Structure formats: structure tokens, C-alpha cells
């Protein structure tokens, strides 16, 4: 635990990639394989579900710290993070421990699920007494299921590659799918030759960067394949050993959520993997994404919702064919084979080819892009002809060329503190637009400002609070922000009658006065145009 807590601290205290990789490499090179396997598991964001109710955890911590409940509450308010608050309030450790990470996870963390409360409490309290603040913090994060650290999977993979000499793309693939952290697992992923056992394992998704600079800088348009960029759930549909697996980009197995696609997979030849987008789709047309959210929200998928919001797979690419990894084959080959697959299975109505959009020039494509909103797409994907299907987010071969977001000038009217590292600052804002002479709440936004701007807005809020409602403050309406968002639609659940998708602060309009902000009327006109 000591080494893992030190690794956490090292990763937490730097934003520099090479320093993070150095810390990871040093860690992997020095700990036993059983620890390394668990560390990888946690670092790439896999975590046990919450093992203990927060209420009980707090109750035991408060008793151990010998403080009243209300003082715990005040402390939590100041820290903004439960695991950290507990680690700061507990008395200094009485012993120390050299026990390794896999002991703590396998003998003390996972069994929490089965133990009764008395045993859980005793185990936790003795753990706390043997750990310093850093270790306790990491430990509390693990038991509350909230462990997170600023490394991407690709950094972890690079460090593992440095330690083992195995190619990073191979490692990334081996880390996909279902696996349990163990010595065998660790040895298997670092093996030079692989005997892959996991039948469900998906391939890492190839992700695109947004286009930088003018579009014609990409050169001759005939070297590129353009496709509409859809906004659904990116997924991989896999058929192996007569079973179907549907994986989300977040590496969640979601087969059961989409019975239509499970049936579709049953029609694929043995050894097939297709990359695509799940979209709510009816009568040859996509439905608004809000419909999909309705469906995702259901615990049980009854016949009604399946009939109301059926889905299709919009097929983008082919990754495996006849049991062979075909990602290195040129785009044209993969595309041609994908077309065969789609035409053989499209009678189900559950698979649609993402058709290439052919135009003679970038100018024509730019004109066509103006239809994006009307077509319910986000813009274009541009794929270089002849390119292979790569791992993760890479520049060069794939680009996304999204349409400009909507933008509206709105006035800050409510604020509340953020979570985690933003808990002691007012970072969550509600913005209003004019409806006659009053400002009606229109959208909430949390992101888009620099730390410096957040500090200034925070100071403004503290000085200009009108009223407090619990954590929420109403604020003198003086600051104007340009909000950007991706979609807009009518909503009976919002006071303004409007719901927007992915709102964020594009700019702080210090040049504008509140009276310059937009009106509900002009915003309604956007819906009409959408």
C-alpha cells in the first residue's frame, strides 16, 4: 500500500507526461506482479462498486476521530471530498504497515462485501490505524469506489511497454475485455507471445481529433473519405464462438441493453468485429437522442419502449473478419468487406452503412456541412484513404470536423460550489436569459473557464450574493457569458421551456452588460431552425 500511495502522490503532483510515465515505470519495475496487476486495474479506471454505505463509513470515522457529527459536516464542507475528509480527521496512525497492495485488496477490500457490519468496522478501523494520511486517502478512495487519478490508459500502457518491451498497441488490446487482476493475468499481458483466451475482448477504439486549421490544409479531397458524424453511443459488435458481445467505448459490456443488436450479431459470420454507433432509429431515420436517453433510463426494457425506440448500428468500420485482426488492412479493403457484411444483414433493419459522402471539392463539402443540423448529425468524419485502424486518439489519419456550436449570451444568476477539487469554490453556475424584464434560468454550465477566471468569478459571487438557499446562492445579475451548446429542443421540464445539450462557457463577455444578453425569443428561433 505504501508504494501504491507513493505512486498516487507522484502522479497527483505532476501534470507532465514524461514524469508520470517515469513514476509508473519505476512502480511497475519494483513491485510484485500481484500488486502490479491490481495497480493496472485501478489506474485504468476499473474499480469495485461501492463496498460500503457512506453513512456507515462516516459513522465509524467520526467515532474514531472523536468529533461530533456536525463538525464532520463542517469539515466535509471545507474539503469537498469524503475520502480526504476522513483521512485528515482520523488521529495519527499508531502502527505502520508494509503489507502489499494485493493483500489489502484481496484480504481486506473485496471481502467487505460479505462481512457483517461489526467485522467491516473492525477491519476498517485497524486499517486506518496502520496507515498514514496518504495511504488512508487512497484506501478510502478504493473502498468508496471513487478512486481516480490523472493518468490515461495510454500512459499506463506506455509505462508497461517500457518495462516489458512488448509493443504498446498489443498491450492496449490485451487490456481490453474482461479480466481479473492476478499474477497469471499480469504475466500473460506482458508475455512476448500471447495465447489469448478472452473470447469477448474488443479492440481499442480509434478516436479522432478535431480538425486544426483550415480544411483544405488536408490536401486533395480525393485522398479522403468523408462520412457524416453521428451522435449516439460508439460501440463494437463482436461475434465469436457463436456468441455476441456489444461493448461501449467506456469498455462496458452492454449486450443485454440492446437485444436488437444481439440478434443482429447472431447473423454475423464467426469471428467478426464491427465498429459503429448505436442510434435510435425508426422508419429509416434517426430519432432525437433524447429518445435514446429515455430508453437508457429504463431498468427493464418492456415491449413498449423497444417498439417506441428501436436502435440500429450505424456501421463505421470492420476490425475482425474470419477471426483475423484486419485493422492493419487499408481503409478501402475494410470498407468493401464491411459493405458486403451490411448488405447481407440489412434486411433485419438493424444495421445501416455509414455512407461515404462524395464531393468534388472541400468547398462543396463545406456547403454540405451546413445541412448537418437539419440531418441530425454533428458534422463530418474524415478518414485518410489507405489508412489502418489505429489505437486510441491519434492525429493524422482520422479527423472530426464538427459544425460550430450554437452560442447564446446569458447572465450568471445562481451559483453553487463544485465537487472534488472545486468544492471550496463556486464553480457550478446557472445562467438566465431575458423574458421581458425578468431573467429566466436557461442553462447550467460548469466548464470552460480557466482557473484564473474561476477565482475571479468566485470572488465576485462572494461579494454579490443576494440570497442563500442551502449551498445555492442567487447572485447580482451582472456577469455575462457566452454559452456554447450542441443541441436545442423544447422541454416541458425546464422553466424556460427549452433544453440544451452539452452547454459550456465559451467566453466570459466582460465587454457586455446584462442588458446585452439574449432573449428567450431569439433562442426559440434557434429551435425553429434546428
Amino acid at each position, binding site marked *: 500500500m505504501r508504494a501504491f500511495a507513493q505512486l498516487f502522490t507522484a502522479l*497527483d*503532483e*505532476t*501534470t507532465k507526461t514524461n514524469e508520470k510515465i517515469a513514476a509508473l515505470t519505476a512502480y511497475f519495475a519494483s513491485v510484485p506482479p500481484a500488486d502490479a496487476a491490481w495497480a493496472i486495474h485501478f489506474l485504468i479506471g476499473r474499480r469495485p462498486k461501492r463496498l460500503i454505505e457512506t453513512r456507515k463509513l462516516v459513522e465509524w470515522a467520526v467515532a474514531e*476521530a472523536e*468529533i*461530533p457529527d*456536525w*463538525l464532520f459536516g*463542517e*469539515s466535509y464542507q*471545507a*474539503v*469537498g*471530498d469524503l475520502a*480526504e*475528509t476522513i483521512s*485528515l*480527521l482520523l488521529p495519527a496512525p499508531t502502527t505502520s504497515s508494509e503489507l502489499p497492495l494485493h493483500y489489502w485488496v484481496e484480504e481486506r477490500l473485496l471481502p467487505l462485501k460479505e462481512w457483517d457490519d461489526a467485522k467491516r468496522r473492525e477491519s476498517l478501523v485497524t486499517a486506518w490505524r496502520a496507515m498514514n494520511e496518504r495511504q488512508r*486517502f487512497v484506501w478510502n478512495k478504493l473502498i468508496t469506489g471513487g478512486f481516480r487519478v490523472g493518468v490515461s490508459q495510454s500512459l499506463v500502457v506506455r509505462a508497461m511497454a517500457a518495462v516489458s518491451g512488448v509493443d504498446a498497441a498489443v498491450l492496449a488490446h490485451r487490456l481490453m475485455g474482461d479480466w481479473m487482476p492476478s499474477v497469471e493475468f499480469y504475466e500473460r499481458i506482458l508475455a512476448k507471445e500471447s495465447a489469448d483466451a478472452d473470447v469477448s475482448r474488443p479492440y481499442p477504439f480509434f478516436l479522432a481529433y478535431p480538425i486544426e486549421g483550415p480544411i483544405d490544409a488536408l490536401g486533395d479531397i480525393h485522398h479522403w473519405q468523408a462520412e457524416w458524424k453521428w451522435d449516439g453511443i460508439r460501440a463494437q459488435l463482436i461475434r465469436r464462438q457463436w456468441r455476441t458481445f456489444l461493448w461501449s467505448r467506456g469498455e462496458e459490456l452492454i449486450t443485454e441493453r440492446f437485444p436488437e443488436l444481439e440478434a443482429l450479431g447472431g447473423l454475423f459470420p464467426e469471428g467478426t468485429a464491427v465498429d459503429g454507433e448505436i442510434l435510435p432509429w425508426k422508419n429509416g431515420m434517426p430519432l432525437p437522442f433524447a429518445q435514446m436517453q429515455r430508453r437508457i433510463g429504463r431498468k427493464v426494457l418492456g415491449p413498449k419502449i423497444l417498439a417506441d425506440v428501436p436502435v440500429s448500428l450505424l456501421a463505421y468500420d470492420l476490425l475482425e473478419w474470419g477471426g483475423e485482426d484486419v485493422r492493419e488492412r487499408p481503409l478501402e479493403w475494410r470498407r468493401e468487406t464491411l459493405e458486403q457484411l451490411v448488405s447481407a444483414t440489412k434486411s433485419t433493419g438493424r444495421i445501416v452503412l455509414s455512407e461515404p459522402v462524395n464531393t468534388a471539392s472541400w468547398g462543396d463539402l463545406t456547403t454540405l456541412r451546413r445541412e448537418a443540423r437539419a440531418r441530425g448529425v454533428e458534422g463530418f468524419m474524415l478518414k485518410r484513404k489507405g489508412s489502418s485502424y489505429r489505437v486510441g486518439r491519434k492525429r493524422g489519419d482520422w479527423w472530426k470536423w464538427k459544425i460550430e456550436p450554437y452560442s447564446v449570451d446569458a447572465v450568471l444568476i445562481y451559483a453553487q460550489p463544485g465537487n*472534488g*477539487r*472545486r*468544492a*471550496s*469554490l463556486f464553480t457550478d453556475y446557472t445562467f438566465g436569459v431575458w423574458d421581458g424584464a425578468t431573467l429566466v434560468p436557461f442553462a447550467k454550465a460548469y466548464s470552460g473557464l480557466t*482557473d*484564473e477566471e*474561476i*477565482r475571479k468569478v*468566485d*470572488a465576485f459571487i462572494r461579494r454579490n450574493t443576494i440570497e442563500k438557499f442551502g449551498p445555492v446562492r442567487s447572485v447580482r445579475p451582472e456577469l455575462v457569458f457566452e454559452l456554447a451548446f450542441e443541441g436545442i429542443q423544447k422541454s416541458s421540464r425546464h422553466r424556460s421551456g427549452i433544453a440544451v445539450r452539452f452547454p459550456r462557457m465559451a467566453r466570459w463577455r466582460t465587454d457586455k452588460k446584462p442588458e446585452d444578453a439574449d432573449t428567450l425569443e431569439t433562442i426559440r428561433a434557434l429551435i425553429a431552425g434546428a
Partner: protein
Amino acid sequence: MSALLQVNANGLYCAVGAFYIDPWRPVPRAIVTHAHSDHAHWGCAAYLCSTPCQSVLRSRVGSDSNIEPRPYGESFDINGVRISLHPAGHILGSAQIRVESRGEVWVVSGDYKLEPDSTCTPFEPVRCHTFVTESTFGLPIYRWGAPSETAADMNAWWKSNQQSGKASVLFAYSLGKAQRVLAAIDPAIGPIFGHGAVEKLNRIYRETGIALPETHYAGSAPAATDWSRALILAPPSAHGSTWIRRFGTVSTAFASGWMRIRGTRRRRSIDRGFVVSDHADWPGLITAIDATGAECVLVTHGYRAPLVRWLCEHGRNAKALETRYDGERDEGTESETPEPDSPDPDPIPQVPA
């Protein structure tokens, strides 16, 4: 029957003695606990402070100010009110003000801490009926570790930066914190430089007889200086400014009690946080309050409400006192005001129209 000291629009006022303690507006007569800007306001007609506070105060409120120094522990009368100054252990010259009239004793502590600090006289408990305490870090999450461990951490950080070829830029408030850090670190590791605002106070500390390791003014260092071996002390307002660029690749750190919370460090985009404070931590506040034997405790700064409630639950008559003192602010007064990079005494502050 009004209290011996009361808050009015200008500050904490003693009507019987016709003087203020730490006023936040210019007044005819001010007794000042210490020279931090939230306690020592410029423009008063007459100041009274502890003897070691005198030079620092002068640098803050203007060289031609009327300042009367008094040694710690010496009693004197102002309009029949008996007054004495006692060490608060906060920064050089910081004092608790003991005020006695008709047998009633008040102590105004200003800011204080209990940890040892070679740059100022240690805190001394004073028995009283009413104790005015700060509460900057008035929550049990604030507990300071051993100063020797923090010093070892700072030394290790400096050395490891040297190994990776980075200059070590340590942000610390220029009055008090910077000197305390200086006295704690190991000067054998490499050369130490200061921002002008820090150097100015280093000089005053040395003139007052406080031993500090040798430092150089960063602004007059030759162009060829190898910064990668250096430790540079700067006020927090220099963070993110162009002033930092001259040092090339840097590792930044901030010495502050707020660094105890992970979120505050991350929000500032600082590489390292060292928990070093001039203020009492939670156990320190409780210990100091207990030692006064006060029946009544008035709480200023920071986390007033939790401390008041805790004291009341533990059988004391405690109340919050509304003042304008900031304490060691996370986004504090000192950090918001860019300090000029000049080691020379400041010009006299301008009186705004």
C-alpha cells in the same frame, strides 16, 4: 454597561482608553498586534506596537509615521487603561494586547501560533476574562505536522529539482512566512534568491537581529546565473506572472496551511504544497484558549462558527466577532495585490481621494 472593547465602523475600539486595536480605517490612535496588512492599516495618526515590530510596521505604513514601540511584558497606561504587549509567536514583533480596566482583563491575540519558530518570540499564554482569538484554521482537518519533517520535505524537493535541472520557486508570503521558510531550510544545498518584496523584509529581519541564511536579490543576478541549482522565494502574487520566466524550467511550490487540502493545491496549479502556517492549527487554538482561562471567548477570522459552537459545547461562553481580518487567505489579500519587485523601501502609500 458597555464592553471594554467593541467593534465599530473603524475597528475594535476601547471607549475608556480612546484607542483602537488593529483598526481597518485610519484612526487617531492605533495599537497594532502585527504588521500584516489586514491588521496594520496605513494612515493612522499614532501607532503603538511591540519593539521588534517597529521596523516592519514602518516599512508597511510609511517611514514618517508616528510609531511608539513598547517592549514585551512592560505595562503602561492610556487614559487610565492598563496595557501590556505579549508575544503571539505569529511573525516578527507579533503581540497579544492585554487591556485592563477596573479589574477586568481582555486579551486581543491578533494572529498567533504555538509551533516553535526561530524568527519570532514564542507565544506566551496570558490569563484573562475575555480572550479575542483568531480561527483562520478553525476546523479539526487542520493539524500541522512536525516542522522538522516539513523542512526535510522542502530540502528533498529542492535537491530533486537540482537533479532534474529545474529551478525551485517557492511561493510564501513575503512578511513572516518567507523568513520562517528561510530559517528552516538547509542553505548548504544551493544558492538562495529572493523576489524584491521578500528581500526587503529579509533585510529588516536581519537588522532586527534575526539570523537568516544568505540570500540574493533575484532581480540583480547576472544574466549567466544557473538557476537550476537555486531556490527562489517569491510572494504568491508572482505565480503565473512573467517574472517567473527568467528562471527557465521551474518546479513551483507554495508554503501555506491551505496546502493541507488537496483541492486547494491542485486548483492553484502548483507542483508541490508544503503545509507551513503562521497560524494555530485546531489543537493549537484549543490549547491556547484553554491556557487563558477566559470565561468569554470572542472569535474572529475564518472558521468562526464551528469554533464558537465547539467552545460552547465545551462549556465556554463564546461568540463570533465581526471584523475585517483575513488571516492567511487562500486567495488572500497579500496574494491578490502584486508586490513590486524592488528590495528597496516602498514609497509612502498614497492617500486615496
